[in-house]
């Protein structure tokens, strides 16, 4: 047990913080501690978690991506247009189209980074502007409301009637999220390619001397994020039941903050899927709690900003050092 705590100190620290926040919110509000609210949190966080596990892979490989959220907007829009063109489609074709488009956009980032040796933050700030600029230019900012029925119909996977007559529901985005999380976990911890990504992020020169294909690593990392972003884009359209070109604009920073909060290191080689999920949940729970406490929504941004600050500060020191009971847990 001690060993487990040591090797997953960030995750345990996050769990502790989440537990503390939940305890406070359960005592101060009457609606936080309910199945309905818990399920709601999962439903609303799903898209961000899918983004986050994608971004995690890029961070582990030593890169960073600013463009994935607007990339997802592009994917949403183009997928909606293609679905309209082929006359509807279904979940299978929708996910396939969105995933492939996402991979293409990610591969373009990897191409710029690998072929022209542009550092990833610069390359993706550029593509962030290009993707978003192209999208706004061609769409004139016009939203699409006329989506296929399968895409806008809510799919309830599990429901439970509460004492007060409301329904607590788990919906499709949660299932997709769980699959994406499981796939990413399997990929980065249990496959040789995943371990090569970690090694590449940890010590690129060392990885190169082992004969690891550096170019392939970039394409795989950014391709994986692209695929996750594409899927997240489609799920967000499903959840919102519309495609608004600038709906995801700005989401990249929230997700980045959550992933770094979850223990991923800007600079590569470090980060876990569990930490990443907990990071997103921590921010989501904080927002949810503020909401229930009646704090003005205008304050949310400020508080998320503070969390980003804390996350970046901790990306090098790690959160457990600030918590007295975790001290000494690491050698």
């Amino acid at each position: 047990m001690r060993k487990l705590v040591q090797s997953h100190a960030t995750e345990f620290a996050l769990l502790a913080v989440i537990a503390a926040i939940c305890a406070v919110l359960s005592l101060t509000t009457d609606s936080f501690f309910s199945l309905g609210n818990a399920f709601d949190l999962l439903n609303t966080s799903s898209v961000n978690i899918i983004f986050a596990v994608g971004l995690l892979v890029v961070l582990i490989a030593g890169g960073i991506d600013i463009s994935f959220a607007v990339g997802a907007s592009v994917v949403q829009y183009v997928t909606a247009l293609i679905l309209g063109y082929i006359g509807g489609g279904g979940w299978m074709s929708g996910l396939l189209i969105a995933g492939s488009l996402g991979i293409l956009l990610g591969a373009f980032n990897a191409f710029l980074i690998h072929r022209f040796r542009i550092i990833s933050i610069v390359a993706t700030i550029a593509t962030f502007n290009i993707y978003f600029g192209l999208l706004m230019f061609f769409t004139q900012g016009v939203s699409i409301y006329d989506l296929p029925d399968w895409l806008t119909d809510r799919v309830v996977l599990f429901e439970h009637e509460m004492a007060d007559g409301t329904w607590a529901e788990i919906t499709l985005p949660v299932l997709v999220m769980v699959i994406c999380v499981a796939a990413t976990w399997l990929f980065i911890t249990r496959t040789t390619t995943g371990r090569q990504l970690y090694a590449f992020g940890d010590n690129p020169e060392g990885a190169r001397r082992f004969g690891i294909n550096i170019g392939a690593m970039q394409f795989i990392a950014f391709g994986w994020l692209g695929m996750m972003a594409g899927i997240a884009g489609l799920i967000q359209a499903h959840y919102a039941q519309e495609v608004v070109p600038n709906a995801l604009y700005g989401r990249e920073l929230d997700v980045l903050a959550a992933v770094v909060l979850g223990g991923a290191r800007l600079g590569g080689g470090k980060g876990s899927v569990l930490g990443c999920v907990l990071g997103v949940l921590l921010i989501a729970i904080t927002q949810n709690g503020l909401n229930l406490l009646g704090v003005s929504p205008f304050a949310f941004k400020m508080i998320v900003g503070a969390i980003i600050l804390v996350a970046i500060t901790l990306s090098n020191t790690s959160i457990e050092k600030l918590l007295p009971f975790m001290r000494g847990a690491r050698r």
Partner: protein
Amino acid sequence: MADIPGTGAKPLLSLHNINMTFGGIKALKNVSFEVLPGEVHCLAGENGSGKSTLIKIITGVYRPEDGAVIEYDGQTYSHMSPVTAQANGIQVIWQDLALFPEMTVAENIAFQTVIGRWPRFVNYRTMRDIAVKALQRLGVALDVDAPLKDYSIAQRQIVAIARALVGEAKLVFMDEPTASLTQSETDHLIEIVRSLSASGVAVVFVSHRLAEVLEISNRLTVLRDGALVGVYPVEGMTQSRVTELMTGKNFDQQVRAKSVRDNPVVLEVKRLSRPGQFHDISFNVRSGETLGITGLLGAGRTELALALFGMLKPRSGSVSLHGKPVRFSSNRDAIKAGIAYLSEDRLSLGLIQPQSIADNLVIASLDRIKSGGLLSDDRKRQLVARWIADLGVKIGRQSDAVSTLSGGNQQRIAIAKWLATDPKLLILDAPTVGVDVGARAGIFEIVAKLAESGLAIILISDEVPEVYFNADRVLHMAQGQIAGWFDPQSCSLQDIEAAVYA
């Protein structure tokens, strides 16, 4: 040279007619090289002599020019590839180790198992078994599940060696393996190399530290300017002979010590102590004097120097400069008072590699080149020109980046940077680490000239010959205390070495 007299052994590796050209410059000229099975072989040569090029040819990183013959383990090749080299048991432990600090020890050692083009599932249990077995073979106990970053450099070195053994190594190259190790860690490493050699693995050792090379190797191959100087048995070799072979120059060192008893005292240290680091240290340094401080790593030499430079606070005792007691609250105070300290890692920390020679040289003395509150380019140029000439630094233009200079010339720039602050006391901590044997002599020429001009100098080194030949008095520190004083004019090098390594 096919058979070594008395052994009759067939070489494990033999290279002939190796030529390599980079951008019109011949890096290797018709070089031959042989390694016997299970021997410890030293590859010696100055920086740029072609050692690393040769290693990279053997490990398949470079392809030699046509006509090369590489015979390894009964097979003949015209060139190697990294894959064939590794598959046939040729392993390199690079100077920077090429390890992955965030991963576990097990994964670092058995990383070979996750290499390959096509994705497979990782078998952590196999990895763990491989790692445990490799460490057992080295007789080392490490927690294979702990992340590598929890371990010291010396232990990481062992992990790198264990990793090399996983590939069923027959021939292991070690590139400067002891550069960042302490004496006892080096001893442990040498033991490991011996046991490898005893178990039939040939080890090729590349090192600047001649003492340990001579201690450990059976044979020695010397390269100079890309050409083979010769292959020699190590028995009967001396450090100065190897230096001569490597540089082609004769460095018959003379004891420089002189008497400076009549000069005024610059620095007076009385009963200086800092618990756990140094205890009851008293000495003085006179103008024009070079005081040598030697002792094993961990003897408290560097801590003492840092205390004199204001970076560590002594608990008790006093320091006075020119008779006036001083107490520094930071190294800025010490610099202002006229103390300059060249740290051991000056090449990486002391110089800003991408910036120009001129900017590096004046960075600690910007106050001196001000004119009307702003920096004056003219004054800067004059100051730089003066020091470049004084120290005989070979440069192209003042605006060239420091990184374009050789190690020895970079060292001179680092010294010049401090001299430009016009110090009264110059502390040199291991000034020749990472500097070629040939360039070392040049550095000590400068030290002697500076002393002659009246500067007080403290020369710290763990290489006894350096202080013996270049200091006027030698202070031997052990376990934080003064263990003895030596006067090079009236004692032999062996006297001091016997005391230090006792």
